[in-house]
């Protein structure tokens, strides 16, 4: 199986969790075990849009209990004999192999996944900034020879790119270091906030320079936060920035 695989370097491993849960898109070749009419295949694929039930396969890295996954879209592309090509946009953790098997069961003839290419993982897509292992080896060698930072930026992206689809809250410089030390984000520190945030959403807390400070779980909606004057806006879940990057601006009782 090929396609988009975001690889995190050193400190950026902290955002892996956010990538695991992010939505994915695949292009898949499904092999039918019997003959089926094209419009019937099309029909059955459409039935799988929305929420589906899946039990993780035998060799899976998670607990094998029935769970639901959202299929955002499932588009029939083309069919050649018993090979069916389709595109699927789905929630992270959807097993496409399982999906093919289930489509085969509904069709009655049976089916399996023949080939799979991931075309999206969260904000990363296959036609923008994607590089091969060869590119990585080549550009890194060039960087070592020339020491030109432009070369590094050709194949490595800032970890903030991985957070592009997560709603953001921008904060004051003076609030940054407290959060790096694990404090929660309070209302006075908030400068701006994106729409479509609900109580319980995971947000990315950013500086005005566009640096990621932390991942946090909000305790109110966008509208409520805009009107808050004090109190906790978001509970810090994962600190991304190193302590001391910004100056310490809070008072401690010990000093």
């Amino acid at each position, binding site marked *: *199986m*090929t*396609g*988009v*695989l*975001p*690889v*995190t*370097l*050193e*400190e*950026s*491993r902290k955002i*892996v969790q*956010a*990538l*695991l849960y*992010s*939505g994915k898109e695949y292009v898949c070749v499904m092999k039918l075990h019997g003959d089926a009419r094209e419009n019937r295949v099309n029909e059955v694929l459409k039935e799988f*849009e*929305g929420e589906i039930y899946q039990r993780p396969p035998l060799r899976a*890295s998670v607990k094998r209990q029935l769970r639901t996954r*959202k*299929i*955002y879209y499932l588009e029939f592309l083309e069919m050649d004999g018993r090979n069916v090509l389709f595109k699927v946009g789905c929630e*992270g953790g959807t097993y496409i*192999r399982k999906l093919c098997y289930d489509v085969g069961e509904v069709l009655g003839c049976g089916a399996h996944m023949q080939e*799979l290419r991931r075309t999206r993982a*969260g904000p990363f897509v296959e036609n923008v*900034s*994607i*590089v*091969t*292992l060869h590119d*990585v080896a080549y550009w*890194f060698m060039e960087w070592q020879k020339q020491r030109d930072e432009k070369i*590094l*930026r050709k*194949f*490595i*992206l*800032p*970890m*903030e790119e991985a957070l592009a*689809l997560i709603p953001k809250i*921008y904060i*004051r*410089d003076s609030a*940054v270091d407290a959060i790096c030390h694990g404090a929660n984000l309070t209302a006075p520190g*908030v*400068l701006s*906030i*994106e*729409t479509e945030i609900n109580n319980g959403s995971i947000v990315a807390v950013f*500086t*005005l*320079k566009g*640096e990621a400070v932390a991942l946090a779980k909000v305790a109110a909606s966008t509208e409520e*936060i805009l009107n808050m004057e004090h109190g906790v806006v978001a509970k810090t879940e994962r600190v991304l920035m190193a302590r001391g990057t910004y*100056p310490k601006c809070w008072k401690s009782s010990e000093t």
Partner: protein
Amino acid sequence: MRSAMTRSVAPWEIKRKLLTKAEDKTNLSYGHKPAERPAEEYMRYGVINLDKPAGPTSHEVAAWVKRILNLQQVGHGGTLEA
């Protein structure tokens, strides 16, 4: 959702607007815009959008990147089976 036939919205289809709560400036004497981090820091806070080849596992591919770049910790987001 207007009807059961409306397909659900994928996370990458959601449009967000930025609303201002208060105004402030950022001090340029600390921190860096992500794209302007010094080389060593840029790498440590970096992500590669890798096109996984067929054959090796996601884990093996991440290990190769680690060896090529001579780093301590390399991970990957979302296993893509071999």
